[in-house]
């Protein structure tokens, strides 16, 4: 059998969804007999490979790096899964949206709640540029499968991968939160 080329991606999330994935413990060894992990924050691959079968994407799209990576993932992956509430709805990562634009958010965080002489740090060229709005993954690229949950339980992640490995369409109803 052709081995599954699996990628897992960490966009704007807390890594909790990846912790849930790691919670699969010894089943991961079983998974490793049929799948290759070709890209992941827990591997040392820097460039998203072409021709990926399945990408589990954690986190919302919060900065320009996420945005670019989201497009790369979509171009180079057969099945894209929005993994967890942040990828599906924006969730905790999007809590800043009601505050307004990036300027408003930085003002709120660094000045309004900072020390009296606080300034907004100049990070140009050092860290990725924040988007004005945190977006769910599907607002940026088409998503094939949604797996909400914060985080989705290890059992549900396993269920999804098993279903997809068996060549079936997942039908399990899903709850947010």
């Amino acid at each position, binding site marked *: 059998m052709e081995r599954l080329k699996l990628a897992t991606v960490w966009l704007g999330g807390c890594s909790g969804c990846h912790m849930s994935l790691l919670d699969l413990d010894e089943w991961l060894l079983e998974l490793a007999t049929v799948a290759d992990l070709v890209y992941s924050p827990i591997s040392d691959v820097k460039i998203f490979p072409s021709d990926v079968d399945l990408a589990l994407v954690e986190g919302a799209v919060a900065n320009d790096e996420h945005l670019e990576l989201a497009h790369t993932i979509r171009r180079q992956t057969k099945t894209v899964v*929005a993994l967890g*509430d942040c990828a*599906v*709805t*924006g*969730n*905790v990562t*999007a*809590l800043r*949206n*009601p*505050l*307004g634009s990036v300027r408003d958010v930085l003002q709120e965080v660094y000045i309004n709640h900072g020390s009296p002489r606080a300034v907004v740090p100049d990070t140009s060229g050092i860290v990725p540029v924040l988007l004005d*709005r945190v977006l*769910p993954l*599907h*607002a940026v690229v088409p*998503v094939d499968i*949604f797996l*909400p949950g*914060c985080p989705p339980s290890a059992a549900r992640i396993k269920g999804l991968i098993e279903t997809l490995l068996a060549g079936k369409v997942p039908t399990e*109803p*899903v*709850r*947010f*939160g």
Partner: protein
Amino acid sequence: MSARTLTINQTLVSAREGESVLEAARDAGITIPTLCHLDGLSEVGACRLCLVEVAGSSRLLPACRTTVSEGMQVQTDTPRLQEYRRAIVELLFAERNHVCAVCVASGHCDLQDLALHVGMTHVRYEYLAPSCAVDTSHPRFGIDHNRCVLCTRCVRACDEVEGVHTWDIAGRGVAARVITDLNVPWGEATSCTSCGKCLLACPTGAIFPRGSTVAEVQRDHSSITRIMTARGERW
């Protein structure tokens, strides 16, 4: 009271005169999703989740506000209705800030249950992300407008069960908000008796007991029904 015979989803159903399509369907074991309806309170037809198709009507009708009539032919679960219901639930999520992961009502929320029921996988509409207040000026309860779906169950529970009418709605459209007294902080609303019936009626995490944290708020909505049934028996 005379009986009426109608068909709901091709099944012959007999109902009491004056009953709503929603009640008739329930008696026949047919579930129609609802949100603004709460047994014991009056009907306002605000949420439109209970919309049904009635033969001869070009409009969809809210089952909670539509009275049964002889020979009526009702469909409660067509693909068109399923799609509309899903769209309605998605719009409710898009309109305010629902972050189930950090919400007091998670796991015990009618809106969350509805999302599951209508098969919502994601929200296709742009999130409005409005700036909403959280008022914790009341000594016992708080109101988080981020989670309010404007069902007016609090308004009706306060008015019809407690007989007070502390709650009302101010503003229109997306700017509409539930208010206490003449739009003063809840803690300053002198009409409020602190009975907690609005909390019991609220389907979401909007009204909560102060001090509650994630997924802690469990309410028994049927206590409103019990009070109203008991009152009906007494008087």
